[in-house]
């Protein structure tokens, strides 16, 4: 089904309060019109923030985007053909309160799960797009998230369409226990198939990318990009502080920290991201191969 998710709405939709955590959500005063920047503390008009793709024009702070917002600013005209939209997790462990929590998150976010997958184009070039949404249970990976990612990558391998993935996740979904951990192996299998097919996979790490998602598909991209200031790491900061009993540097586990240590390819400001993805797709496109052959 072809969905014009954003065509009829203003391009970046109404600015919902940007925070993932309820505590921070309360800071957005008055709701919908103005937002306090979590980088510099300035009060930003929602309209101004929208114009800058939800980044602070003063300090460059990147506010988290919902999956629909991300799809809207990444694909041509926000046109998106969604895969597996009805797919959800079950409650394999009969974990106390989990089905209720899932239902509440679905209600709150309008999403069925913490990832949205599908197809669209960037400057006319097809991509399989995989977008996580940190509003939905911290973007945690349960069976449904793993399954949707695996299926999207398999379709991409079959159709030979490059994959662009936006990671935003707190890691594993505890409520699915060991089955959540096994999604790391499952998605790794899907990435292995992409590699075998020679289909490019571009991983974009956004705030936050942590835990089991960092330790699996998000770190397996042929090309790994990150948004400025994004928290990216494996273990939680507090656990590390408890383990080593010392204060961590301010830039610890940021995109900049990872770049410095050689873990990612590039940090890209959100305003440049679509254009850079377009260049990457162009370089990996069929026509680029033909140009190469012609000049040989």
């Amino acid at each position, binding site marked *: 089904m072809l969905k014009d998710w954003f065509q009829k709405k203003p391009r970046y939709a109404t600015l919902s309060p940007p925070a993932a955590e309820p505590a921070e959500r309360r800071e957005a005063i008055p709701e919908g019109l103005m937002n306090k920047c979590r980088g510099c503390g300035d009060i930003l008009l929602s309209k101004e923030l929208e114009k800058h793709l939800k980044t602070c024009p003063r300090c460059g702070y990147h506010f988290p985007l919902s999956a629909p917002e991300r799809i809207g600013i990444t694909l041509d005209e926000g046109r998106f053909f969604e895969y597996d939209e*009805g*797919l*959800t*997790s*079950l409650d*394999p*462990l009969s*974990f*106390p309160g989990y089905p209720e929590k899932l239902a509440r998150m679905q209600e709150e976010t309008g999403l*069925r799960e913490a990832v949205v997958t599908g197809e669209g184009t960037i400057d006319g070039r097809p991509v399989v797009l995989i977008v996580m949404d940190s509003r939905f249970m911290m973007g945690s990976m*349960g*069976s*449904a998230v*793993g*399954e949707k990612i*695996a299926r999207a990558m398999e379709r991409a391998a079959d159709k030979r369409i490059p994959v662009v993935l936006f990671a935003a996740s707190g890691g*594993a979904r*505890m409520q*699915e*226990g*060991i*089955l959540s*951990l*096994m*999604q*790391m*192996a*499952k998605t*790794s*299998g899907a*990435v*292995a*198939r992409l*590699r075998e097919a020679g289909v490019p996979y571009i991983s974009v790490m956004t705030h936050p990318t942590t*835990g*089991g998602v*960092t*330790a*699996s*598909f*998000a*770190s*397996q991209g042929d090309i790994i990009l990150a948004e400025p200031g994004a928290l*990216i*790491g*494996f*273990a*939680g900061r507090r*656990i*590390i502080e408890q*383990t*080593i009993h010392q204060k*961590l540097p301010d830039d*610890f*586990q940021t995109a900049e*920290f*990872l770049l410095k*240590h*050689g*873990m990612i390819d590039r940090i890209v400001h959100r305003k440049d991201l679509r254009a850079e993805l377009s260049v990457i797709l162009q370089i990996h496109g069929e026509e680029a191969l033909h140009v190469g052959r012609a000049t040989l």
Partner: protein
Amino acid sequence: MSGELPFEKPLVELERRIAELRRFMETEGIDLREEIARLEERAASLAREIYGNLTPYQKVQIARHPDRPTTLDYIRGCLDVFLEFHGDRCFGDDLAVVGGIGLLEGMPVTVVGHQRGRDTKENLMRNFGMPHPEGFRKALRLMKQAERFRRPVVCFIDTSGAYPGMTSEERGIGMAIAENLLAMIDLRTAVLCVVTGEGGSGGALALGVADRVYMLEHAVYSVISVEGAAALLWKDASQAPRAAESMRITAQDLLDLEVIDGVIPEPLGGAHKDPETVIRRVKEVLVRDLRELSEVSPDDLRSRRFEKYRKMGRVFEG
């Protein structure tokens, strides 16, 4: 008895009393055989009751028992010969992971595994069995080497998790685990895995993507430590026993969830009560499976392994 666990106390006290009576009988020359026999019977039934009804959290305690056999014990006990190899050829040699090559009933194998210490000194050297990236990269290097020479790989899992420290993050712990998962799912050689103690999260899975995965009877395997889960769910690490119940972390749970292929029974009270027996049982399983899998082509092994993990998880198509 050293290293007794809290729930073993009634049994330990009973055994102490029996020992006292024996001593008393010898020194004082009074016949207490009847009383001793009665108590011994009670001890045996108490042991069956305690060990036959272990709660998930009691299993966690057994899985972490310091006297439980470690990876090197299994290697020494199972292999005819073993050469330990060191280093990731990049940064260093992480002693929280051991690996090397050897012969198992005459069959060439590569073995890798987490290695924790028995005492404080050894644990400091082994970083309590919590690997840095270079540990996982050493394991990966040895697994790729095994693939080149068509040697099966045996992995022993025994870790509370990857090391959560600054040095780990600086050197890309997430990347290292991710690379291992990608390589292991794709390995064109047989991979067997035994969770011998605690299987903690991504640091365990980084050595755990295998054709067949076994757990010892009292081993546990979880996505997050029970203390970590309790802290997240109830903001209270002392709720670990409750978390252990909800998380489904025992060997029996994982067999039900079709995440593992079998459970290897332990002696009454746990592997540490009789290491020889449990090591022999592990060896029997490894030898049997290696013979079976040697009949399967490398490409079939790889595609079956892919299919196995592809099916994991429970979803609903709405």
